[in-house]
């Protein structure tokens, strides 16, 4: 199995290289440069020019790329010009919040989707199944932001059950039990909203997988052994259908990080996604490129995670 994992990680190197090159080229194509933001009526144009030269702005592109990528590899993504802080420290703080939200959402998605998918597959073509399928189609069809806005409005502003912004109340002392509870409380509404819409893929996949598994020859073999139907389901059908679901985890996390851009903006949750939107609006290029790179890296990591999980659960993929 380690061979598979190492090979998969090696594949990531050229992928990351191409990704970084693309991001670099795109960043270069964007109008203006980091220093444009510093220009005020009083600025001396020569001073800006000096800064540009100092920052290597007129070096050949490959030198610039080399400097950027080597610094990035060491965690140095340069300075944010709006926050006047190193990019890495801004993102680090936000990433933690986003990961907390993503983790909570993933757990909720799986808690909702797995039982529903299993029930729909098990009682295929019955009323329960049809209800679940209807839910999964509706949740697929609703535009995410519409539901998010409705939830913020109804549960946040109207009923006031949940906070509508931030990650924690400022009045609380960090480290106390109440502080952590309050953090969790801030996760609830965005997490639940995401989970309600994010279950479609897993429900549909699991349902189809179970319906297919029922007609498989190995299920007939299991029945021919005279084991009770309940055990045929649990030991063969569910088991074989659930294992590939584990591999969805990587992709679900990737999807979530992408989804965080939306959800954090609507719920005013100051994570990476919100930082991304804010940085675009303020043209904070060094933050934007760093975030795009990070999202790309996480997407690759997600698919790596999926492949590794799959190679663990499915012996046919294992390389001994």
């Amino acid at each position, binding site marked *: 199995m380690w061979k598979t994992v190492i090979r998969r990680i090696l594949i990531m190197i050229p992928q990351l290289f191409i990704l970084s090159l693309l991001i670099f080229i795109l960043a270069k194509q964007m109008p203006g440069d980091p220093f444009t933001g510093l220009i005020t009526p009083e600025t001396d144009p020569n001073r800006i020019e000096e800064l540009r030269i100092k920052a290597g702005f007129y070096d050949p592109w490959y030198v610039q790329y080399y400097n950027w990528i080597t610094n990035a590899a060491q965690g140095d993504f340069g300075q944010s010009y709006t926050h006047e802080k190193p990019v890495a420290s801004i993102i680090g703080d936000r990433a933690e919040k986003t990961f907390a939200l993503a983790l909570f959402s993933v757990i909720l998605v799986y808690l909702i989707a797995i039982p529903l998918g299993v029930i729909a597959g098990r009682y295929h073509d019955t009323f329960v199944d049809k209800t679940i399928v209807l839910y999964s189609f509706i949740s697929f069809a609703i535009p995410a932001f519409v539901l998010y806005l409705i939830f913020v409005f109804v549960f946040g502003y109207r009923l006031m059950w949940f906070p509508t912004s931030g990650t924690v109340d400022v009045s609380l002392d960090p480290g106390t039990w109440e502080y952590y509870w309050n953090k969790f409380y801030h996760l609830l509404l965005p997490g639940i909203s995401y989970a309600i819409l994010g279950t479609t893929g897993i429900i549909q996949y699991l349902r189809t997988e179970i319906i297919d598994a029922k007609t498989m020859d190995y299920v007939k073999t299991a029945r021919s052994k*005279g*084991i009770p139907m309940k055990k045929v389901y649990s030991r063969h059908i569910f088991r074989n259908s659930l294992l590939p679901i584990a591999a969805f985890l990587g992709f679900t996390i990737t999807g979530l990080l992408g989804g965080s851009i939306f959800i954090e903006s609507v719920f005013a949750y100051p994570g990476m996604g919100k930082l991304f939107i804010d940085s675009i609006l303020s043209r904070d290029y060094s933050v934007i490129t760093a975030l795009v790179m990070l999202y790309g890296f996480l997407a690759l990591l997600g698919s790596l995670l999926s492949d590794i999980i799959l190679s663990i659960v499915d012996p046919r993929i294992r390389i001994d």
Partner: protein
Amino acid sequence: MGFVSTKELLTIRNLRTSFRIKDTFYPAVDDVSLTLRKNEILAIVGESGCGKSTLATSIVGLHNSIHTKVEGEILYNNQNLANLTEVQFNKLRGNDIGFIFQDPLSALNPLMRIGEQIAEGLIYHTKLNKKQREARVLELLEQVGISNASRVANQFPHQLSGGMRQRVMIAIALSGKPAIIVADEPTTALDVTIQAQILDLLKSLQDEIQSGIILITHDLGVVAEIADRVAVMYAGEIIEEAPVIELFRNPKHPYTRSLLNSIPQTHSENEKLEIIQGMVPSLMKLPREGCRFSSRVPWLDESVHEKNPKLHEVGPGHLVRCTCWQHFYFEDKEGSVNG
């Protein structure tokens, strides 16, 4: 009819198994009667789609009960298997009756270790504890001719060859020390050399455990090699039944004769392969009146014909569903029909 004779292990009487297609049930096995005796290999032959597998799965109740209707009697141990509930069947399946499937790759769970798959039935049919079950698994693997049993028990199906997988399937079927083994084309998915090995294994196991085997195949070579008796099916019916030597020496039904003619003969390489004209009609279009084979008999003479041919005994244990076979003149194929 009174009691089932002690020699008869399984008695099938007027079995009709029908599948629902758009709210109508169409029989795929129609009025089949057969007996299986202890220590006997009964072969069931016929073309694809004639109902062989349907007959086999009826015996072990593996059909989907919503879409399938099983009528008639399948008598085993004073029980009619045609009327059993799932729970009652589970006491017999994997215990009194073992089943071997055609394709051992798809018939084994790809994500479960071989040992676990063999031991599974033992959990429900025996009182063995985990240790004892593991020992029994190794014993079974050795019984089906797998020498490195403890290694194989830890492997997954995809790590084994086709022949090994079929041996594992046989081990599963044997695990309950069954009185009856139903094997549905156990060699069709295998290489020719492996086929012979598997047949030898079945034959030697049968000598050892004395169970009755129902062997389904469309390979008459297999039949000639190991069967004791043969039933030929056509379009859901049995059209001829005889001891194996009798059937090969003295086939009566025109369908049986053409089946025998379609065995490629190794000694006549330059002769063209004999092919039976036409195809088995599909389930919905099956003729339900008269002789089902008549549409494939181009030389049919209506005047000598029985309207609904019944099985007639033409020799000891030799039954034919055709009354007018005496009237036929076959181009002299007798030379190539041998047993």
